[in-house]
């Protein structure tokens, strides 16, 4: 398949305007298995749109080309003691992909991680975009300031639109200071319901929890609940102590406190990247719902393996890769509770047969189709990727 790789936004606009057949848009290709499979005659790569164009640490602002490797952005921020607030997931372990994730891919898929529970999703930190729509027009929305209500917020619309409304050329973020210290409270032996109750108590406290996850089968085999706090050293120690008091008496072995032991220091990365399911077969679902409903959902799916993030507001499920990857069972179990289920890992054939994204009610399907028709009237950008 031919690869188009424009070196500037102007070239990108020319390239898109001149398209005569559908293209699959590609950043680093590490998230290529998300959504419906795309039938395209060529690949449109953003690798030529790379580089941090503006970084003001004192203004908490970073602007970069969509093709900039995520690693480059994280290194740039780390040099000034800052970071992206939303802790984007690395999809490579779960999807078995290779290559370098790009910041444009993070935005296009609205990728977040465990800190989403406190710092919001990718879309919450995104303050500006430039993109080329399906007609080849270069469009700008938002900017480089964190408070901006000038006109409609197309920034949010572009986040998570999987390249179906336009090709991102540049993205701007509000960034945050990286903390001086981090501590994770570990509780062993909780039931799913007990873990959600503990995480709810922690997240409902004033101690500014930045991660709350539960692994029913932790690294040692026993259930493990993780509660993270970050900040200045003395503050972290204080809040860890208060949380320990608050959660005391829960779990079989009580609370383990302080920094995570060395052999477990990749636990948050494991939660972020859904590593418990990475080297195991089967389809993988990501379900968003009310935390209090999460144990009910998991109990209703006894065949599925599950773990919890976002204090229970996110449930990862691994199911047998049947014809529909368990879509009917998962969505039926979810329907009475409310929420949405996204099929994150399945074969292209399954993703063609089953809607990977939660089906929307008819009036919203019409709105989404209307937006797509206006932003990509010829239907050339990642066609069908988000099709209902």
């Amino acid at each position, binding site marked *: 398949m031919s690869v188009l790789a424009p070196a500037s936004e102007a070239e990108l606009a020319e390239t898109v305007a001149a398209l005569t057949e559908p293209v699959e848009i590609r950043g680093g290709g590490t998230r290529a298995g998300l959504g419906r499979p795309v039938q395209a005659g060529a690949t449109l790569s953003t690798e030529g749109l790379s580089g941090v164009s503006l970084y003001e640490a*004192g203004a908490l602002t970073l602007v970069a080309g969509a093709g900039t490797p995520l690693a480059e952005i994280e290194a740039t921020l780390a040099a*000034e003691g800052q970071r992206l607030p939303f802790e984007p997931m690395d999809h490579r372990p779960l999807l078995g992909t290779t290559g370098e994730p790009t910041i444009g891919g993070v935005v296009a898929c609205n990728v977040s991680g465990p800190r989403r529970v406190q710092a*919001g999703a990718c879309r919450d930190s995104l303050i500006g975009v430039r993109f080329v729509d399906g007609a080849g027009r270069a*469009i700008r929305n938002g900017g*480089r300031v964190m*408070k901006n*209500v000038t006109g*409609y917020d197309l920034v949010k619309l572009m986040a998570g639109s999987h390249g179906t409304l336009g090709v991102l050329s540049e993205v701007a973020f509000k960034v945050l200071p990286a903390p001086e210290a981090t501590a994770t409270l570990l509780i062993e032996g909780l039931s799913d319901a007990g873990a959600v109750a503990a995480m709810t108590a922690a997240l409902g406290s*004033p101690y500014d929890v930045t991660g709350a996850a539960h692994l029913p089968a932790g690294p040692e085999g026993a259930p493990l609940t993780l509660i993270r706090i970050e900040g200045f050293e003395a503050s972290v120690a204080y809040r860890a102590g208060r949380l320990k008091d608050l959660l005391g008496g829960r779990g079989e072995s009580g609370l383990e406190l302080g920094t995570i032991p060395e052999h477990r220091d990749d636990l948050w990365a494991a939660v972020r990247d859904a590593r418990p399911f990475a080297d195991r077969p089967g389809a993988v679902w990501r379900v968003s719902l009310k935390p209090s409903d999460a144990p009910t959902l998991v109990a209703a799916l006894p065949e599925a393996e599950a773990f919890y993030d976002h204090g229970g507001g996110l449930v990862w499920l691994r199911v047998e890769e049947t014809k529909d990857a368990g879509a009917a069972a998962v969505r039926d179990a979810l329907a009475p509770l409310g929420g949405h289920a996204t099929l994150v890992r399945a074969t292209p054939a399954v993703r063609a047969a089953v809607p990977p994204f939660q089906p929307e009610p008819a009036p919203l399907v019409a709105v989404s189709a209307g937006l797509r028709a206006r932003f990509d009237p010829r239907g050339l950008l990642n066609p069908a990727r988000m099709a209902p």
Partner: protein
Amino acid sequence: MQMPEADADVLSRRDAILARLARALPADALVADPVETRAYDCDALTAYSCSPLAVCLPRTTEEVAAVMRLCAEEGVPVIPRGAGTGLAGGALPTGDAVILGVARMNRVLETDYANRFIRVETGRTNLSVTGAVEADGFFYAPDPSSQLACAIAGNIAMNSGGAHCLKYGVTTNNLLGVTMVMADGEVVTVGGPFADAPGYDLLGLICGSEGQLGIVTEAWLRILPKPEGARPILIAFDAAETAGACVFDVIKAGVLPVAIEFMDKPIIHLTETFVGAGYPMDAEAMLIVEVEGSDAEIDDQLARIRAIAEKHAPMEIRESASAEQSAAIWKGRKAAFGATGQVADYLCMDGTIPTSALPEALRRIAEITADHGLRVANVFHAGDGNLHPLIMFDANKPGDLEKAEACGAAILSVCVDLGGCLTGEHGVGVEKRDLMHRQYGADDLDAQMAVKDVFDPAWRLNPAKVFPLDASASRRAAAHAAE
């Protein structure tokens, strides 16, 4: 300021339209007497007003839907209204339009502490959302300064901010879902009490769309546990540039205050005369920096801020050690708009700039107001670069309002030139509508208007707002011809 001419056809059918509305609504939900509708002739941008065709004040989503269906059938423009506290004229009617106000829909529908959300009808005021949960240790974060009066509906329409958004974000970061009545009267739910609604981020589009995409009647809002405490520090400087550099250094050092407020000399003096807060009168600029946490955490953060401030040779530092001292430090800041209103009429600008451009922005604002022969006082959210220059004028002096408006437009142009934007939290409305060309090119505006085409093909919802009239003219005309 120009508004489209009222549709003569609609005006000629006024009685029939009112009769239909009267049949669709309870008797007290329709206001048509021109004396009684006067309260709805304008919002807080009082310089512009117009009598609407009628005012509808429904109590249920079904009644809102009935009005929307009826207006769609009759081709009547609809102007959504919350509490009418908007500063940009977003709720300004035209003579052929029905005002659809949600102020009577103010119930709390559900409070769920375990899942940290509240569901309310959108006529509820911002402060009373926090009021409904604070006894249980929670709060709703966005806190626009009109929070005692402003409605959640308007907060969503304008994507309102407030003093504390440096840490907690603005409305769009705290909105989980909405019930919305579409232009044709269909009722839809977007999002809900869970994160990251699937598909296109329609919730993100709706928030900040100034009532042009639908009428939001109910909302799921994120609530947060209240911090253990909060205390401010006051730092005075002999130059605005130094204050700006201090803000930059505080943020760069990894301290994330909940608020960083900036006041310049004129506003310090105005508030001193008004409420006697005891601010340093010889300072050129003053910062109020507030941090949150336990007492020890607050002490630690204030010590860090003090250490940074001391490198900038401050004239004075006042660290609050008690609730009384905190109130004293905030007293003048909270009275800033009232104090200015005591001595002059004023226009409150709302541009945002990158915080690194603060000194230059202040210098150019001073030059521009001097060139216009006007006075300006500056009070704003420095942490996020959201400026609020108060341009003072005399409304009784012919030509003075126009002079102040020209001055404001020049200031907003500077904000755009410095890499910022026209409005950080008040919205575009009619006030900044014609400046949109300054910030966005034709294609940028066209992409935004394409969104409205999808939600409101007939361009009947708040049609003359946000977009310059020349930019939206062909769309409004085409929609009208199609009806």
